[in-house]
Structures are given as structure tokens and as C-alpha cells.
């Protein structure tokens, strides 16, 4: 008898709860645009925040709401933007593929250390201790905060103390730009060829004293380039972003230190190739 009561009670309770859940489901339903989920699936799903929103979901919501254009996702690139735009029937928006560029060529052999650093191995920490151990206060410290911050495995630290950026993997999310305490990583359109690989505000011999490949601020590149392409500011040449159609290799030819370079895709191509193969070999040998 007792058992029958218990079973009956539980059965009645479950029926009651099932009914109330069914009612709640129909009455309290949250209407969500199904397109948000679809768009989120189309996005790369890296949740990197490069678009300016906290994660891909938030970006998808804003795209569907029409607040931003799909092209604002730098990671997905033009292809993703096109797919999303087609699905939603909106304009894809301007997409310029940007990649991170290292604006320092001061590897260990050309830009020597002047002090020993024996602390926490992070650029940020080293920079907090009177700007780091390198002779040049503007240059790359080479402790690899940027490599660690990279979500896409697009960077590795070369044996000469400079981070190498794989332009094929780089999505231009800007994580490394924020990680660098010296501000020597910047996002440039991949189509830009003229890159000044120096951030030193020093001029002439003072700059050369701390780094062999520093920009001395001589202004020859600005004089050789077509009118208005390169402007000198604070002893550094600034390539004007709105005049990139004028770009010519001529500007780099007479540079005394090679600080301004003509980059076609990969930066530091020889070093990159050499160490990339070494790295891959090391990887495969470990597997074997």
C-alpha cells in the first residue's frame, strides 16, 4: 500500500512538473534571431576580440543587427566576410588584410646589450626595470611576450632575438601589438611594401652607437621617394597611408643602414625561411 502511494505521488508530481515546464516553454520563450547562431558558425570562432567585441557571438549579434559590417572581422578575412554578407544579404564592407609588422631589426649581433637582466623573463617586466637591458631603449627586447600572446601560432622567436611573424598565419588581430611594451609591433596593410624597421627617435651617430641598423634620420628616403609619400617626423620617416599607390623601391636604395626596406609579403624572408625549416625539423625529429 505504502509503495503504491509513493509511486502514485511521484507519478502525479512528474506529470504536474512536466505540464508546468511545457507551459513555461511556450509562454516564456525567448525569441532569438536564428541567423545569429548561423553567422557565429561562419565566423572563425577564435574569440580573439580583434573586431572590438567580446567574442564571436557578440560580433555575430551586432552583424545581424546591422550595426557593423561583416568585413570588420580581421581574422576571417575577405572570404568569411563574403560568405556572411551573402547569407545576410548585406554589403561585406571594406576588408584590407592587415598583418603585424616588426618595426625593429636590431637583432642581438647588431644592437648589443649594455646591462644584464636577471629577472622574470618577460619583456613587460624587463621594460619596467629602467627600459630593459638593450643599448637602444626603443628596440626589441626579445623575451617573447608577443609570441606568447599570439592565438594563431603565427609567431616564433628566432635565435637572433627577434620575433618572426608568419604572414600567412597572421590574422591581424592585434594581440601582439598590445603585448609589446615597446610598441614596435604595428598592424600594416599587407599590400604596403615600404616598412621602416626602426622606432628610434635618435639621430645620426647617437642612433648608430646603439644599433648598426638604426634609422639615422637622414631623410634620404624621403627625398628619393615620390613627393609626399614619405614625411620625416621626429627623426623617423613616416610612410603616408593614403599615398601607398605611389610606393616605389627607389626609396630604399640609398638608405645607409637599411632601416627602410621593401617588404613583399614576408618580413626578413631569409631568416624566416631558415629558422622555419629548422623549427619544423626539430619538431619532426622530436616526433620520431
Amino acid at each position, binding site marked *: 500500500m505504502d509503495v503504491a502511494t509513493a509511486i502514485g505521488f511521484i507519478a502525479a508530481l512528474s506529470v504536474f512538473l512536466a505540464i508546468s515546464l511545457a507551459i513555461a516553454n511556450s509562454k516564456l520563450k525567448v525569441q532569438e534571431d536564428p541567423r545569429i547562431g548561423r553567422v557565429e558558425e561562419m565566423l572563425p570562432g577564435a574569440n580573439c576580440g580583434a573586431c*572590438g567585441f567580446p567574442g564571436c557571438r557578440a560580433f555575430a549579434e551586432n552583424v545581424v543587427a546591422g550595426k557593423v559590417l561583416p568585413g570588420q572581422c580581421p581574422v576571417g578575412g575577405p572570404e568569411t566576410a563574403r560568405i556572411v554578407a551573402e547569407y545576410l544579404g548585406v554589403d561585406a564592407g571594406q576588408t584590407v588584410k592587415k598583418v603585424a609588422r616588426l618595426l625593429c631589426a636590431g637583432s642581438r649581433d647588431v644592437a648589443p646589450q*649594455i*646591462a*644584464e637582466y*636577471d*629577472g*622574470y623573463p*618577460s619583456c*613587460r*617586466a624587463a*621594460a*619596467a*626595470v*629602467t*627600459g*630593459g*637591458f638593450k643599448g637602444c*631603449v*626603443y628596440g626589441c627586447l626579445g623575451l617573447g611576450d608577443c609570441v606568447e600572446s599570439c592565438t594563431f601560432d603565427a609567431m616564433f622567436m628566432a635565435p637572433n632575438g627577434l620575433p618572426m611573424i608568419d604572414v600567412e598565419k597572421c590574422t591581424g588581430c592585434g594581440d601582439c601589438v*598590445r603585448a609589446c611594451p615597446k610598441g614596435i609591433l604595428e598592424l600594416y596593410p599587407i599590400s604596403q611594401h615600404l616598412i621602416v624597421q626602426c622606432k628610434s*627617435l*635618435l639621430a645620426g651617430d647617437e642612433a648608430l652607437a646603439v644599433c648598426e641598423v638604426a634609422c639615422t634620420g637622414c631623410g634620404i628616403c624621403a627625398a628619393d621617394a615620390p613627393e609626399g609619400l614619405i614625411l620625416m617626423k621626429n627623426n623617423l620617416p613616416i610612410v603616408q597611408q593614403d599615398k601607398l599607390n605611389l610606393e616605389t623601391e627607389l626609396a630604399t636604395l640609398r638608405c645607409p643602414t637599411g632601416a627602410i626596406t621593401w617588404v613583399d609579403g614576408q618580413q626578413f624572408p631569409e631568416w624566416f625561411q631558415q629558422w622555419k625549416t629548422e623549427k619544423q625539423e626539430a619538431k619532426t625529429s622530436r616526433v620520431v
Partner: protein
Amino acid sequence: MELLLQREKKTFKHGIHPDDYKHFTRHLSIERMPFVDEYVLPLSQHAGAPSRPLVKLGERVYRGQLIAEPAAFVSAALHAPVTGVVKAIEPREHPGGRMVEAIVIERDPYSPQTLVNEHPIDWESLSPAELLEMIRLGGFVGLGGAAFPTHVKYAVPEGKHARFFFVNAAECEPFLTTDYRIMLERYPDIFLGIRVILKILGSEKAFIGVEDNKWDAIELLREQLPSDLPCEVIPLETKYPQGAEKMLIEAVLHREVPSGRLPIDVEVVVNNVGTVASIGQMFKYNQPLIERVVTVTGPGIQRPANLLVPIGTRLTDVIAYCGGMKENVRQVLFGGPMMGMPQRSLEVPILKGTSGVLFLTEYEVVPRQEYPCIHCMKCVDACPMYLNPSLLGMLARVRRYDDMLEHYIMDCIECGSCSYVCPSNIPLVQRFRVAKALLREKMAREKAAKA
């Protein structure tokens, strides 16, 4: 009984007891360093916006002349420390590790180097607002090390009142004897400074907090204290970081500054004793902040000294005057060993906030291997801010900075007590400094995104 009460020492909870090493310089009186040929005055020697230069290249400037004005509310004025000619206005190396715009003055070798317009100031006839403006244009910043502009501290916000004024003479950093020598040799300036500041703030009482390893200074100050000055000398236990302003307030008043707030929220303004003495000099001679006392000390220097140097003297000149460095020097610090800033170049100038220059040899600077945290909680017992450095250190290790925020990382005063006691040699403070810098950047970015 009264004698016993007089010897009563106050202190805060937690903290550490490092050896004080003050024997290098504590017996040496302050000596004035002879003028050198060149002075480098960075426009950013203080917390806040860089000063705006008022002089041009090639212009002749006089000792004590205003050469740069405060560019914002939180900024400081700058004065020529010597009579001479402006040789350059260009980026020069700064002890903080950046290249900072600096005014370089070449000394006129034939000038008598007297102060321009030297006269005592009749401060009693001036109103508090006028006195505050004089301090603002005098270029005063905290001489203890942080170099926070003094006039900003005295500009008490509406609705708040500075009931007590604290003179911080704890000097808890090992090696440094700057404040100690100032107390012994310049106590009239300190008392004059206190009078002026009490008038500006309208405070009812001043306290001078001194650690008990400087007992002769405590006795001297007590003896010489004018009877009409509402001031009390408080002996403090010799313990690090007794000289942190929050610890000083806790020791004397048993008041805790709330998280993220300032001493003014518990009705207190704190100043370093060196700042107070130089404010006293301002009203005695009309001398702005153009020179300061620096302890040049450590086992790595030939002749340790307490030097009175003009602001902007380059470190190389100081080293040359002190007989040079010993051969086995491995590290040169601006400030004390606990919170001091290691230097990468000897060309940097002495700034307003440089309380000492410490030369350490290879015997003191030993690289130490880092081991995993063993959860001994020595750091928890040492932390004067009641934080959990062990937990914070582990979060910092895996870069969980947002979680550190929930554990009050922003309240860390970076005193270094946790790193000092850590048996596993974990560089805790260094990690916290990185975390705080990144969090501050992130907050600024979010604020900018909102605006």
C-alpha cells in the same frame, strides 16, 4: 613611568625585518657637492604631466630661475640648479628607462652661483591659497621617491579635511640615511616647513614618525621642538615598510585607508621629511627645489657620502666625486635595495625623487634559481596590505590578470616584502608590477572605448 611611555614604539601588523646597513653613511654629515659643468633636467621628473619649458636654446639662466612651468594640475615646475646657458633641449636618458625631453644647462664657470632673488618670505602675512601657489611654483614633489607633486596633495578636495599632517621620517629602506641626516642637521627647516603646511591645510596636529634605529634624531627633535608647535615625535618600530604612508597612518592613528582610496579619506596628508625641510628652506631663503640630499652608499663605492647635489647632476659626476666605483660592482640602483630602480646607464641624472644611489657588488647580487611555490605562506604573513601574494603569484604565472583584480592586486604597494621572504625565490613583485601595468592599460582602453 613617563620615560617608559616616551620609549613606546608604534607599528603596523605584518612586515619584515631586513638588516638596515645604515652604518655606511649614518655618521657622515651632509656635504655639498662642488658644481660640475653640465646639468641634465628631464621635463618629467615627477608623477603626472611633463613640465612645459619656458626657456630657449642659448638663453642664459640663473640659479633658482623658473625654466619650466607645470603643464597640468598634476605636474610640477622646474628651476635652473645653476647659473649658466641652456645648451640643448633634447631627449636624454632618464632613470626610468625612456628617452625623455630634457633641458641641458652648461654651467657658467665664472658665476658666483648665488641664488637669484634670495630673501626670507614673510609667510605669516600670506593666505593659505597664496602659500599653496608658492609651493606649486616652487616645483616641490615628494622627495621620498615617488615624486608626487606636493601642491596636489595640499589641494584638499571639497568636503574633506586634513585633520592630521604626517611627516614621514621612517626611512625604512636599508642603506639610506638621507632623512636621518636632514633631521639631525636641518631640524629648524623642518619645523618651519611644518608651520607653513599646517597653515595651508588648517590641520590641528602634526606627527613626525621616526623609526627607532634613529633614536638620536628622535631625541634631538623632541628637545628642539618649539613649545607652540602642535607637533609630536612618534618613535616607530624598525620594520619594513614602515615608511609606506598607509603603514605609517595605521601605526600612529590605527586607521586603515580604504581600498582604492587616499590618505585624505582618513583625514591625513603625509609628506616626506625631506620635502618638508625643503619647503622650510623655500620660506627661509626663497629657494625653490633645486637641490636635494642623496645618500651615495653601498659596498661598491669607494667613498660613501651624504651629498647635497643640484637636481640634474649626472651619475658619472657623482661617482667621480665619490672616488669612483669598485671593480666588482654589479648593480647600481636609484633608491634603496627594496624598491630602488636598477640603472642601465651611468649617464642618467639625479632627479627630484632620487633619495639614494646604491652600489652593489657581485657578493650581494647573486642570481637565484626560482622554485615552485610550496604554500608556506610566509608572504601572506609579510604582506602589509593583507593581500595573498602566494595566490596572486600563481594567478600571475598563468596570466589570469582579471582574476587578480578580484583579489585586490591594485592595492599592492609593491614594497617587495613578499619577494624578500619567499624561500622559493619567486619574483612576486615583478610579476605584480607587470600585472598592474597591463590591468591599468586595459582599464584605460575600456574607458576610452566607453567615451
